[in-house]
């Protein structure tokens, strides 16, 4: 019996799956080219960057926080990596330098949020601008080209026909999903998101856990940045700048509560894929990008409204039962 219950998918999962399938059907009807291997591969070449950033963001949002600086962290790391690569540094070292910068970014966020106690929205709004500014200063506002060819493997290689970045995304998602489900750290993340005071009273070292969460998020942004640098063979400060809102939307669409405590990385990835498919279908059908925003927004609102209504319904039923 217990086993059966575990297998029963959550309501949000069903809604998400329905939305996913609905869009696949629409895409197939709208364009002959949608359900072709070439097209699907092209979706999976572009979408992992946003996906990797979004799963990192999920970890922070599960703790009841948020990281508005994730987009510009990606830009800053891209610029740092680009500068190192063009200066002739070995590739591994260049990537390491950018990862170190990401760890520093995450630490700064965590210090503001967990140690000083600034609300995450405000703290990361500040660091968002700070990181963007730092990236602009470092790159002098220019795009950095002349990325060495040896670095192209990260964003342009395929293994058994599958883009390398898609494999990286799947690996990271599986790792984080297991961490959330099975590791003490994951349980602590969820506990803090539900009630950080009670968690602290239970001996959870909330500061340490939050540090780890923000650092993980920044590091994933850095990985996304490196992939994009490799894919488009340039590095610019505004890389990832436009990713923030779609990523937060995908996290929410994927069933993670913006208040924290509930959620997972799997749903987030499906959310990102849904958004990627919408823009892909519209491109194939030759619909202007103005309409893409409209469609993405509508899907998000519909799913969130549906979730809220069913949740209220459940609450009322429980009240009736207890009476």
């Amino acid at each position, binding site marked *: 019996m217990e086993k059966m219950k575990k297998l029963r998918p959550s309501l949000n999962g069903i809604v998400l799956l329905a939305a996913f399938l609905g869009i696949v059907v629409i895409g197939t009807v709208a364009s002959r080219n949608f359900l072709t291997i070439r097209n699907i591969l092209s979706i999976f070449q572009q979408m992992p960057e946003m996906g990797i950033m979004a799963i990192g963001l999920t970890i922070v949002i599960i703790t009841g926080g948020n990281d508005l600086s994730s987009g510009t962290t990606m830009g800053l790391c891209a610029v740092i990596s680009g500068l190192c690569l063009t200066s002739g540094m070995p590739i591994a070292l260049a990537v390491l330098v950018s990862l170190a910068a990401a760890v520093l970014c995450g630490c700064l966020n965590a210090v503001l949020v967990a140690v000083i106690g600034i609300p995450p929205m405000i703290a990361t709004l500040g660091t968002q601008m700070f990181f963007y500014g730092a990236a602009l200063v470092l790159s002098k506002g220019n795009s950095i080209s002349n990325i060495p060819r040896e670095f192209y493997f990260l964003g342009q290689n395929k293994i058994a026909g599958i883009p390398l970045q898609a494999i990286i995304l799947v690996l990271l998602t599986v790792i984080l999903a297991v961490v959330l489900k099975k590791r003490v750290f994951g*349980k602590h993340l969820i506990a803090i998101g*539900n009630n950080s005071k009670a*968690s602290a009273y239970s001996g959870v070292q909330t500061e340490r856990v939050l540090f780890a969460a923000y650092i993980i998020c920044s590091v994933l942004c850095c990985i996304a940045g490196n992939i994009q640098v490799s894919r488009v063979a340039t590095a610019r400060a505004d890389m990832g700048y436009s990713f923030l809102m779609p990523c937060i939307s995908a996290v929410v669409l994927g069933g993670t509560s913006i208040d924290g405590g509930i959620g997972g990385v799997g749903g987030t990835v499906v959310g990102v894929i849904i958004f990627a498919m919408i823009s892909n279908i519209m491109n194939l059908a030759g619909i202007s990008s103005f309409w893409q925003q409209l469609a993405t927004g509508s899907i998000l609102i519909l799913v969130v409204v549906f979730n809220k209504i069913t949740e209220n319904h459940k609450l009322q039923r429980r009240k009736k039962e207890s009476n």
Partner: protein
Amino acid sequence: MEKHVFLEMSNISMTFPGVKALDQVSLNIREGEVHALMGENGAGKSTLIKIISGVQQPDPGAKILLDGKEVEFPSVHASIQSGINAIHQDLSLFPNLTVAENIYLGRSKKGKIDWKECDNIALEALERLSVQMDIHELLGNLSVAKQQLVAIARAISLSSRLLIMDEPTAALSFSEVRMLYEIIRKLKKENIAILFISHKLDEVFEVSDRVTVLKDGKYVGCKNIEELDESMLVQMMVGRSVSYEALNQESHASEKILEVKNISREGNFKDISFSLHKGEILAFTGLVGAGRSETVKALFGLNPPDEGEIFIHGKKVELKKVSQAMRHKIAFIPEDRHQEGLILNMSMRDNITLPVLSELLDRLGFTNGKKTESLSEEYVKTLNIRPGQIEKMAKNFSGGNQQKIAVAKWLVTKPDILIIDEPTHGVDIASKTEIHKLLKSLAKQGMAIIMVSSEWQEVFALSDRVIVMRHGRIVHEDSTKTGDQNLMMEKAILGEGKA
């Protein structure tokens, strides 16, 4: 000369899931009288006030007569219409509006504000209280006492017949309290009745005409103040029907496990010293705000003392963090289950295993489902938690079972010292008995227990020794078996001088 009774309430009951907050309580209010509502924590005073002021609805069968006519108070608006105004402890005012705006609020017609009328109403109301203040000052800039006056002015400007105040003097200084008494007397002359909740006996004897006492959600009695003296009132609140049997017979010549020497924390507690032995239950009692919870939190690293020393097993220890306290095998079950004790949106299994999660791993370092399951099942059985579904979310259990989950969560850490703050607050009678039995058997097995409790019955039934606190200091320490129980109560309630 008896004044006319204008509000009569009878058969008022209020059931929350798992707890009966009020059980067939009655209350009547005469015109222009000052009526005190008394009782220990959890007696149901606040719930009763919420029913009169329309915030909550009583169970069916309640009867409320206003001027002889049966009425209902389905909303706050309805009770204000009947001339009943309540000032809650948080005052419910708006700090970013001016004094005049706060008094006037909610009265503008068609969304238009008549600023002249606004000023006039405010000035008039303050004049009735003989209070002078700048009505254009922002409320947030005023002292708590002045804010309270604004709340009173607002209430009487709404043509009040009955003014309800929830612990009005809790945040006031001595001279401010005197000022409030003056105002209460003034309102009485205007024939406005006042119902107030208080824990302070001297205050009740000073201003009130009659007293209604509640205990455990039940009506104990209503008396004219002339018929009472202080110890009679204490008896009413505490209840006589307690059989103080000696429950822990064996004498405690056992090993000293904890010694606290002169710890102080600015604004919390001062110069606290005591010791705790193996197998002993030590009770901390006193009134709300006496510093009991703050003191015991200091032992769990949540509220570290500024000075003083703590010794465990004779060795001096630092308790600045929860993790340090846990390493010394101390456990703490807080009073507030919902905010501090449990994580309501997580399952019973996750709650019970949270403090020991890192000990329940398999070889690869993953949390082991089988281990957490069997551990949870074990404690569900020992504590008789119902229903015993370990995947059920903590929020879906009754108060008594939630408390058992909170206890289980700390028993899994196998503590040497268990600190429990108000072990049976808001818990049904059956669970209460079970929790009491459990604490006793834990002590018998050698655990040292510190219990904070405001319930005398509980203190005397369970503990071996009792420490009475008042204003952040220890005022009395005694054995519950040989000590004079009335003396302890009086020390807690009246203070050193009068006992």
